[in-house]
């Protein structure tokens, strides 16, 4: 508490001890750029934009993590489904289903060149998969369940598609309705979905960047308009464009740095709250923990924002000065 009070006292300390007397301690600006209401507004604008950029980037990172997690879970795997009914629609009894499954596993045993292992799923395991849709009070005896075989494929197999096609043909010889699900369609959809979300997030970040450039340029233009007489005077006294420009550039750099630090702190607080609410991740959503490089990118936002602000200010001022004789 004492520390907070000290910080507050430092911020609220009187700047000019005596009315009408310029503060000591060296003149930093020839132009009164740090005075006026526009300064606070620009800081707030940059803070909001940095906050949004940080959230959009984090969303992009999280989407990437989701894709990675889901893809990693299904990579090099396929499922063989033996339907509970025959090709004429007649429900098979369990003995017939088991007989078909035995033929399939016997076939799989001969495919050692690309199949690492397989697991004939028990009724309990299949029931567990159906629980989210049918509830826990499922009466297995009343529902004809297919036989499912989870197959692990050896990594880095050449001509895998040809091998799977051959397997499909061999399975068709046992029963034409046996299906192989390589999860490719579903995974492809998922990857496209998350990729489009990531693209959207990156576009939002880019848009925020462009908006920030426009906001800084607008802010600097209004500063030039407000201080036109002072700028003209310095120009007429022989100040080179860079001398005047440096003051605006430094002003924009400091404002953007201040604003983006505030925005980033806000983003970290919100991310922490989301992580807290989401309970540290579950089966569908990953937790909000970011990798070191991702945190590095977020921490670099203020520096990037300051750089964008300074460069924008530079070009805006030089353009305005070029119109002077």
């Amino acid at each position, binding site marked *: 508490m004492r520390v907070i009070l000290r910080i507050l006292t430092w911020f609220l300390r009187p700047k000019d001890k005596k009315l009408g007397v310029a503060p000591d301690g060296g003149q930093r600006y020839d132009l009164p750029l740090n005075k006026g209401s526009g300064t606070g507004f620009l800081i707030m604008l940059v803070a909001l934009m940095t906050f949004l950029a940080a959230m959009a980037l984090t969303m992009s990172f999280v989407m990437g993590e989701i894709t990675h997690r889901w893809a990693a879970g299904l990579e090099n795997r396929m499922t063989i489904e033996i339907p509970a009914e025959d090709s004429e629609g007649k429900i098979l009894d369990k003995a017939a289903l088991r007989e078909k499954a035995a033929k399939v596993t016997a076939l799989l045993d001969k495919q050692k060149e690309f199949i690492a292992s397989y697991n004939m799923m028990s009724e309990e395991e299949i029931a567990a998969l159906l629980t989210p849709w049918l509830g826990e009070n499922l009466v297995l005896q009343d529902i004809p369940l297919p036989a499912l075989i989870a197959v692990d494929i050896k990594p880095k197999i050449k001509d895998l598609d040809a091998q799977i096609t051959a397997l499909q043909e061999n399975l068709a010889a046992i029963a034409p309705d046996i299906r192989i699900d390589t999860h490719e369609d579903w995974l492809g959809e998922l990857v496209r979905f998350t990729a489009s979300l990531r693209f959207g997030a990156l576009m939002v970040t880019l848009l925020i960047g462009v908006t920030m450039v426009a906001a800084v340029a607008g802010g600097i233009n209004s500063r030039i308009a407000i201080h036109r007489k002072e700028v003209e005077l310095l120009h*007429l006294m022989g100040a080179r464009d860079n001398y005047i420009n440096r003051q605006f550039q430094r002003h924009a750099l400091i404002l953007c740095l201040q604003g983006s630090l505030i925005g980033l702190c806000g983003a970290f607080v919100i991310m922490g709250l989301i992580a807290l609410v989401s309970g540290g991740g579950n089966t569908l959503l990953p937790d909000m923990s970011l990798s070191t490089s991702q945190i590095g990118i977020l921490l670099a936002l203020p520096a990037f924002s300051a750089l964008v602000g300074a460069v924008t200010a530079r070009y805006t001022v030089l353009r305005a000065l070029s119109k002077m004789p």
Partner: protein
Amino acid sequence: MISILCLTRIKDKSVIKFEHVGFRYGVGPEVLTDINFRLEPGSFHFLTGPSGAGKTSLMNLMYLGQRPTRGLVTMFGQMINDLEREKLAPLRQRIGVVYQDFRLLDHLSAFDNVALPLRISGQSEKDVKANVNELLDWVGLGDYKRALPLTLSGGQQQRVAIARAVIAKPRLLLADEPTGNLDDEIGMRLMNLFDQLNRMGTTIVIATHNKKIMNEMNHPKMILDAGRLHIENPASMVKEKIEGVF
């Protein structure tokens, strides 16, 4: 011919040379017509004439606030008509200007206002401090170094403006009504300062309506009337058109 001349750096000892210079704002009428004159190093001139005669426009051209719409202007040996913008900056640093409305920066102290030309020309803070303190003491503002311009009287502000104009020892000093807000005694004291600077080699042009000062100081008068310039020689008091001087 003119363009060839513009591209050539002309060796000329004169501080300013105007040749057939005309000036207009935008598409308006010419406010300065066929102006011809040259100011030698160390010369002292008064610029006078009725209101609206074009004094401010002529001063504006002389401190490189505008470029002429026609004719040739040479400053410190350089033709400025087509000179690149960046090359005008060092020329401007050799010119000290006292504006009629002072043009002090209100947020800067008297010290920092006077220090501006030195800082712009890149002098060290040590030199800035020594020179500015000395000059402010000399103009009687030693006790007001940290005062903001708005807290100073009109006369004090004018002295700050004059100190700012002379601090960098300019080769050309232009002053627009520099004694307008001063009593006669301080006015004469400042004119003596200009005189001292002139003796040290600074070329001086003072725009004024003050006949008393013009008569006492006995320097040539540049008289503007309806955009045309005549020079009045103090010795003979004979009006002479400058046309044909070159």
